[in-house]
């Protein structure tokens, strides 16, 4: 009995204590409030506030201006050459002999598309299946370890991938499949590995974002796990998965260093998987060293086409996201 009473007394004491403390705090807060009111009335408060505001705005303006200046620069250098060659000829002519004044990036244009599709062709299925395994099937600890490893894959610099390709993949292809080894195939293998993390991470997030209720309902209705994944989770995550593919495509088109190292860079449309090819990005990095005059302008023009290409991909991405939202809303 006594113990209980004592306990109650101490509880009351503590309660009183707490009230006292909060009163003191209130008094203190009241003092600060008064100071703030005074500060607000005077203009003193505004000085740091305004400084910070303007600093933030200046940073934002500088980064946007940088983007604007880069695009203006690329287009002002590149567009006059495209205009004098003709857009059709520039884009689709297969003759790239800049020293003789023949500027046609047709082979590079096709090369970029071909290499990107070839790498997506194997990396998307593999990445998507990996993502499904990580999100749905693997026990959580295994999933976590795999996530770490995938991020590690994303962190390897592209020149290291290129070197790996040059030293391991290219000789393998040369010895077992023939040709010079520097080929579309080597590029597609390396590029595919490089875009895997993008595909895996984004589609895994999309799969995990599907509400658990859907899955539980499906399982409760008697569908198997396999049926639930195929008929319900994948369709519900489809806009996220398409986003992953488009982002991977952007990465693949923009990749340069590794591609230059393993594809052989001949400015032709390859006639087999073992033939060399040149992408638009490789074209720029290969020839910028000695290019002058119109030749240099043609490289800027290649950059401008690449720029427009990536811009269109981004628009497509926005469109998919919006369509995905509408789908989810219905």
């Amino acid at each position: 009995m006594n113990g209980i009473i004592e306990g109650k007394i101490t509880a009351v004491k503590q309660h009183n204590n707490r009230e006292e403390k909060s009163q003191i705090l209130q008094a203190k807060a009241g003092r600060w409030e008064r100071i703030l009111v005074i500060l607000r009335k005077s203009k003193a408060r505004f000085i740091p506030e305004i400084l910070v505001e303007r600093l933030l705005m200046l940073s934002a303006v500088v980064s946007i201006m940088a983007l604007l200046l880069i695009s203006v620069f690329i287009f002002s250098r590149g567009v006059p050459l495209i205009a004098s060659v003709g857009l059709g000829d520039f884009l689709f002519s297969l003759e790239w002999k800049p020293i003789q004044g023949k500027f046609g990036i047709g082979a590079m244009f096709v090369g970029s598309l071909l290499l990107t599709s070839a790498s997506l062709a194997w990396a998307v299925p593999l990445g998507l299946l990996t993502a499904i395994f990580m999100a749905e099937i693997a026990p959580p600890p295994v999933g976590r370890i795999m996530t770490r490893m995938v991020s590690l894959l994303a962190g390897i610099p592209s020149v290291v991938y290129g070197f790996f390709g040059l030293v391991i993949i290219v000789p393998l292809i040369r010895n077992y499949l023939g040709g010079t080894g520097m080929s579309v195939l080597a590029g597609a293998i390396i590029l595919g590995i490089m875009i895997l993390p993008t595909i895996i991470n984004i589609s895994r997030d999309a799969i995990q974002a599907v509400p658990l209720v859907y899955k539980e309902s499906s399982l409760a209705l008697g569908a198997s796990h396999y049926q639930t994944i195929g008929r319900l989770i994948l369709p519900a995550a489809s806009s996220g998965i398409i986003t992953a593919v488009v982002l991977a495509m952007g990465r693949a088109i923009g990749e340069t260093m590794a591609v230059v190292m393993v594809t052989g860079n001949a400015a032709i449309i390859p006639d087999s998987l073992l033939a060399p090819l040149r992408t638009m990005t490789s074209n720029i990095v290969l020839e910028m060293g000695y290019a002058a005059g119109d030749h240099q302008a043609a490289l800027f023009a290649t950059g401008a086409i690449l720029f427009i290409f990536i811009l269109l991909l981004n628009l497509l991405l926005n469109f998919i996201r919006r369509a995905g939202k509408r789908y989810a809303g219905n």
Partner: protein
Amino acid sequence: MYSEKLRRVGSFIILGLLLLALVFTSACSKNLSEPESGVKNGGNDELQGSITIAGSTSVQPFTEVLAEEFQSKNPGVKINVQGGGSSQGIETAISGAADIGASSRELKDEEKKAGLKETTIALDAIAIVVHPSNRLGELKMEDVRNIYLGNIANWKELGGADAPISIVCREEGSGTRGAFEEIVMNKQDIFAKSLIQNSTGAVRTTVAGDKNAIGFISLAAVNQDVKALKIDGVLPAVDNVKNGSYKISRPFIYLTRTASDNKIADSFIEFVLSDEGQNILGNEGAISIK
């Protein structure tokens, strides 16, 4: 209130623009600055003033090293070294836009008539290289041309192993490729399916890694990873280049107008031809003319 905000944003955009414009103009003004030629003799023997050297990108790195050395000996002298290519170097020397034009090819006949004084400062040779395991040790110039035209596609046609030839080549615009096209190819187009590498080192690495490959690199870059072939029976070696028996070589030429008398340009060329200048050229990988 809203308009005030707008004004503030506007003023910041303008400020940002101004800052960037400032950076840009200061970066550009360096390129735009006109070459100030002419000698200002301050009454003593010391050279004062600045000259411009423009032209071949193959000569440019050598000129830069030489100019640096010359400037440290003559603190009053400023030498601007620019690229642009051999043709542009010859043009600027004729027009007077540059005090010295640099060329890595012989002058054409109509260019020779323009009243230029040619001074060959060094030689450069291009070696045709293959994998060290390649059975062949010698090729005719004709065969090299046919390989690079795509007419000969297998080593057995030349007496080598039965294996397809991997052709390795430099990119368009490279001075080495330009000289190769001129001397070996007779200006015919190089086979479009040849592999393109954009540096001497990359060509050497590719040839060293592929036992069926053939490539061309500057003689100074040949090492034990690759085998340099005899061309028409002549080994690419410094002596053979000097006596003219190795054909795939080119001169590095400085061009000055015969009419002008520019003390700085003259003494710079004198320095380049001296033992010290020739030593520098040799150390940097060119073949000295002495």
